[in-house]
């Protein structure tokens, strides 16, 4: 069996504020294999982006990693000093941000930014670095790269800029890329091109990708596995097809039903009552219990962890391997569930 590229165990991230300690991430665990795309979905405030930032070591005070482990190829990276972390970042782990305009320096030519990154992270000389930059731009689908390499970011359109950012992330051939809402700022026709590009790179280079987005459509198409987050915890994780088609967690079910699709005939969308709790006010037990229509006593007291469902609910599809859900409904006796 292959080793996971990234392995996150029981990660906890806290923010110290005047009103007390807010726990943004509370016990998140997952692995990502080489060449695999793990989609992370959830609504704003679910902790998707914070998870990404924690892995890449970008949590800044007042935030802190309060517990858990992050391993890259089996080696812990969450407790490294800033200097060693800086060496890993960019070379082993890269990040693609939402807004391509802010992640490029507007005062430098695209080529200069690429070459600088290549020189920092590899042994190539200046001339070879430039050749490599052109090669990368070509790979991400920028036409006439030998000419475009001398352009400034403002001379590129949104989609082209995001391609440059992806090229920048690929400079040092990282093993792991965190892509935080990479297509949110783009139009649909361009979005599809970027998704296809990320998929292709994954397949060809065996790069592991953590794709953070709130767009289930993007996840459904890009990811191999998906983790649904709610209030800083993983509610459900599993192969993308299972989670999208047969979600188990009541929140995931509601979420999938709430999304208008191009196919389904629905007069009304599924509505989850209420909204996500604030971090300062996360309910005891299962964080979803006040909004859940299948809540029972245990949910209000005991917090469920993502686990292999022991019992299926009646009338549901058979459970798939690797599908885990944090819900007491699936560990309780089926006879009780029926009642």
């Amino acid at each position, binding site marked *: 069996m292959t080793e996971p590229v990234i392995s996150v165990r029981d990660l906890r991230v806290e923010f110290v504020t005047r009103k007390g300690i807010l726990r943004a991430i509370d016990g998140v665990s997952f692995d990502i294999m080489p060449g695999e795309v793990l989609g992370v979905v959830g*609504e704003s405030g679910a902790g998707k982006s914070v998870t990404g930032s924690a892995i890449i070591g970008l949590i800044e005070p007042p935030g802190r990693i309060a517990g858990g482990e992050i391993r890259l190829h089996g080696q812990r990276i969450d407790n490294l000093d800033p200097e060693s972390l800086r060496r890993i970042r960019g070379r082993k782990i890269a990040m693609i941000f939402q807004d391509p305009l802010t992640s490029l320096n507007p005062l430098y030519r695209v080529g200069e930014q690429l070459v600088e990154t290549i020189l920092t992270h590899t042994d190539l000389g200046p001339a070879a670095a430039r050749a490599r930059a052109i090669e990368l731009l070509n790979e991400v689908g920028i036409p006439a790269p030998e000419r475009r390499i001398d352009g400034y970011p403002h001379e590129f359109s949104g989609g*082209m800029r995001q391609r440059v950012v992806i090229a920048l992330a690929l400079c040092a051939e990282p093993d792991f890329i965190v892509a935080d809402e990479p297509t949110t700022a783009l*139009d*649909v*026709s361009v979005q599809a091109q970027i998704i*296809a590009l990320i998929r292709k790179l994954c397949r060809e280079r065996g790069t592991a990708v953590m794709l953070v987005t709130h767009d289930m459509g993007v996840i459904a198409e890009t990811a191999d596995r998906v983790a649904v987050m709610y209030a800083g915890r993983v509610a459900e994780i599993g192969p993308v097809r299972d989670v*999208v088609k047969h979600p188990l967690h009541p929140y995931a079910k*509601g979420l999938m039903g709430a999304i*208008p699709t*191009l196919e389904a005939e629905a007069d009304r969308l599924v509505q989850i009552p209420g909204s996500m709790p604030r971090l300062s006010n996360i309910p005891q037990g299962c964080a979803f219990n006040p909004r859940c229509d299948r809540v029972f006593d245990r949910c209000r007291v005991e917090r469920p962890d993502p686990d292999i469902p022991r019992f299926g609910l009646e009338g549901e599809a058979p459970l798939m391997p690797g599908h885990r859900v944090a819900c007491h409904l699936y560990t309780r006796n089926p006879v009780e569930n029926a009642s």
Partner: protein
Amino acid sequence: MMAQTKPSETFVEVRDLKRVFDVSRPWLNRVIERQPKAFLKAVDGLSFDIRRGETFALVGESGSGKSTVARMAVGLLPVTAGSVLIDGVSMTDVKDSQTRQQLRKRIQMIFQDPYASLNPRWRVERIIAEPIHAFGLLKGEQVTARVGELLTLVGLHPDDGRKYPHEFSGGQRQRIAIARALASSAEFIVCDEPTSALDVSVQAQILNLMRDLQKEFGLTYLFISHNLAVVRHMADRIGVMYLGRLVEISEGKRLFSAPRHPYTRMLLDAVPDLGMTGRQRQMVAGEIPNPINPPSGCTFHPRCPLANERCKREPPAMLDGVACHAVQEGRVS
């Protein structure tokens, strides 16, 4: 409640609407650098009708001119040419200015960003009562009662009127914006991306609410969105925009089952959807061109797989709901 004039089948009539923005450099630069004036045709000859009580949606990518149409429809932006008639009254003609004043209270708008469209220094009750005061509809105690009624209608509590906008979440703020739009008993509501700033579960709540209100009050919506799935869920009829022109107008569901214009097909192919897991898609080439210097003829021709010489020369006219030479010549099924 509503000042009913003659009930007509067509409620909103947009004819040959144009809007040109002057995007020239400053005068001095133009003189020194010998540059000509530059114009951007944001909307270029748009015509459509909206029937009473229906939802008409405009979709398109950014820069296609959707929002410009919305703002012209409510009179927030003067038109360059063409006309907007709402219930027979022109929004553009000076002669109609008296009747237009009457018309104003029947038209409202819901904006994209509920964080920007509500005054943060006003209490919610004042925000919602603003249209009531502006049109002098009610006085004193009646206003408070009406505000409470409106808040209940959109799923909030009458006591929420005492709070400030910052005390509400995005979805609740959008509910407040809807309550404000309903305050003057508006009949025609222009919604410019009303849910694109919201999370999906909240989006579902707002879309359901908008549908319920439409049924209850017989509202007519002009619904602007870039999200095709949302549009499919909401709209009775849909117009697809590309670079300031309508390329296709179709009954809601038919646009998705039988798209005709090559651009519509491309858009539908490109949308990532829940049903798409593991599906291989047709790749789309290119991006929306610069509207300051749009391509000649049919503006879609550089990206169109069916383009020929005629498409490069001649802009296609809207015929039978689609503006495409290839479709009209029968080159495509």
